[in-house]
């Protein structure tokens, strides 16, 4: 805010002291144009938030905070609780991150080192970006017809050997939080890879040369120097991926099994907030629509909190540098 004021003051001073050449007018015009653009984005966000809040308000006043902790979802008798969906959203996104972060960072390191020639690297990274371009509904259908039947023996194995852990209990049927997490990890990996790779590529070459000159092996250079130096970018990519995973709708609706109950097992069908909204909105009655708006608001809030935490983490690591 203060920098904006300073900027415009500077411009005002210049306006007084210098005559109006066309160049200056264009310059000033450009400043105001970009200002309007920036402001309109913020306004749009506020406007959408307000609209959702207004639409959700009747549900908020009826169901209150108890909505977040109860587990029944019964549109016929208008009893609603969002806890299974909140749980499903967080768990599926976290498991997806657990899979995608090591893989994604690993691929990013591989692609930013000189293990293989440039042309091959470019080919691989282009392939990765193509994964990001697959429409989520296609991934969902692929999940239903290819991935789930393919994974079923693995699930059965997991269940029969590790079934004593509550996480893998239940009867494995394919459509589950774990299936969703696996497909989500495929979807978010390109985000992690391309941003992390960009960060690693932009590190000053002196870092690498210095580490090597001190006698560090390549392994040590990567783990002790390059990754810590690029950590803010890597964490940024992870947070972006987390946001994507939590908000993913179509894949979630098609693969999570949409059971509105709370279960500790990853092999049981679950539900996420986004999948709930997608599958219920079209045929919803009036009260149900208000409740779904409330659920949307909860999801927005969760994403907001995660973004704030991400900002804080990134700032902290940047200070260390």
């Amino acid at each position, binding site marked *: 805010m203060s920098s904006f004021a300073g900027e415009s003051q500077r411009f005002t001073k210049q306006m007084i002291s210098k005559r109006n050449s066309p160049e200056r007018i264009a310059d000033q015009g450009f400043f105001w144009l970009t200002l309007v653009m920036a402001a309109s984005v913020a306004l749009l966000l506020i406007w959408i938030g307000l609209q959702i809040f207004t639409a959700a308000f009747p549900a908020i006043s009826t169901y209150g905070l108890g909505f977040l902790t109860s587990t029944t979802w019964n549109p016929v008798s208008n009893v609603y609780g969002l806890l299974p969906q909140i749980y499903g959203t967080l768990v599926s996104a976290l498991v997806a991150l657990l899979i995608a972060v090591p893989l994604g960072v690993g691929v990013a390191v591989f692609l930013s080192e000189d293990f293989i020639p440039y042309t091959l690297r470019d080919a691989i990274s282009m392939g990765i970006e193509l994964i990001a371009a697959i429409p989520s509904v296609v991934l969902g259908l692929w999940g239903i017809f290819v991935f789930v039947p393919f994974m079923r023996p693995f699930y059965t194995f997991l269940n029969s050997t590790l079934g004593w852990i509550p996480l893998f209990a239940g009867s494995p049927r394919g459509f589950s939080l774990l299936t969703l997490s696996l497909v989500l990890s495929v979807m978010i990996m390109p985000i992690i890879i391309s941003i992390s790779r960009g960060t690693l590529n932009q590190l000053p070459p002196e870092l690498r040369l210095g580490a090597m000159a001190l006698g560090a092996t390549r392994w040590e250079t990567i783990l002790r120097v390059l990754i810590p130096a690029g950590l803010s970018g890597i964490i940024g990519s992870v947070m972006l991926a987390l946001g994507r995973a939590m908000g993913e709708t179509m894949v979630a609706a098609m693969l999570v099994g949409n059971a509105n109950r709370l279960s500790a097992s990853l092999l049981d069908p679950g539900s996420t907030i986004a999948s709930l909204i997608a599958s219920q909105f079209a*045929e919803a009655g009036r009260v149900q629509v208000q409740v779904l708006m409330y659920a949307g608001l909860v999801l927005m809030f969760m994403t907001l909190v995660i973004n704030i935490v991400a900002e804080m983490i990134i700032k902290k690591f940047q200070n260390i540098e």
Partner: protein
Amino acid sequence: MLFSKLVSRRASLVSISLATAVTIAACGGGTTDGEVPSATEPAAGGGSGEAVALTGAGASFPAPLYQRWFDAYNREVDSNAQVSYQSVGSGAGLEQYIAGTVDFGASDAPIQGDRLESFKAAYDDADPIQVPMAGGAVVLAYNLPDFTVEEEISLARETYCGIILGDITNWNDPAIAADNEGVEFPDLPITWAHRSDGSGTTFIFVNHVNEVCDGWEGGVGTSVDWPVGVGGQGNEGVAAQIQQNEGTIGYVEYAYAKLNEIPRASLENASGNFVYPDAEAASLAFEGVEVPEDFGLLVPDPSNADAYPIAGLTWILVYPEYENEATWETLKSILLWGLTDGQDITTELDYVPMPDSIVERVREVLDGVQVN
């Protein structure tokens, strides 16, 4: 000679671009009243009069039928009539209908409750006009090892109610064996598969369950709280649950089950007969039934002795008054065409056509719509 050639070529052009328009509208969902994708504009001059663009929104259950109707009408009857139908779901369709942003709405459940009230409030206490366009059946599809489409199984009312309520949990249950004498059933746990998204199919199904199953507490709605089972997104989701898991049974739309050749069960109807689901048996469900004044006909348990027990209607909602005469006349002739000449398409797509008695009454009601 040359002229007629020209016209026919133009007509085919119209149909192609209309098909595109319908697809675009179905995907985008953002089209509002009178707004037709510009691709149709040049072709629209092909017929004699002015092009009439109609917009509708609502149920997804009859969407394939409506889109075929509107396309065929445009091609065969009147190339000026361009209808885009957005299958956004009954709930969203009714909201658009009440808000007046479409020319007609479509719903799988009769308009009622607070939506009916707000329609009346918005239109000077006038009643919405809902007319049934087609019917559909809902079948119980299952997956048992070594059973094929031809080898049908039969389920009595207590039996399928028991499966839905979670009381019968294994295929070797004596109740199932009693319904199917001479058939060996494996020792296999039963999994119930249901729709997880809000759907007209669910509405038709639970409407029946609510009537015949003692102990059903879920009520009637487009999405309900199931006591047991797993959910699938859309017909394809439920079908995948069934086809990929032995021992699963669930409900899907008749047309979908038939198209994908999923085995489906014969069910016991109100007269105690076991009826295999097909379009003819489903249409008997509506025969000889007193149709209420507002066409809000629900047959949770048809009394006809040969009727398949789970069937329902789907409605189109028109306004009691239209401002533009061309709009209403076109819409009216399309709807009546669909109910009469369009019945070939209805049966081809495995929907249930409306009997003549209902068509006549629809005609009378549509004649009462005002234009000013």
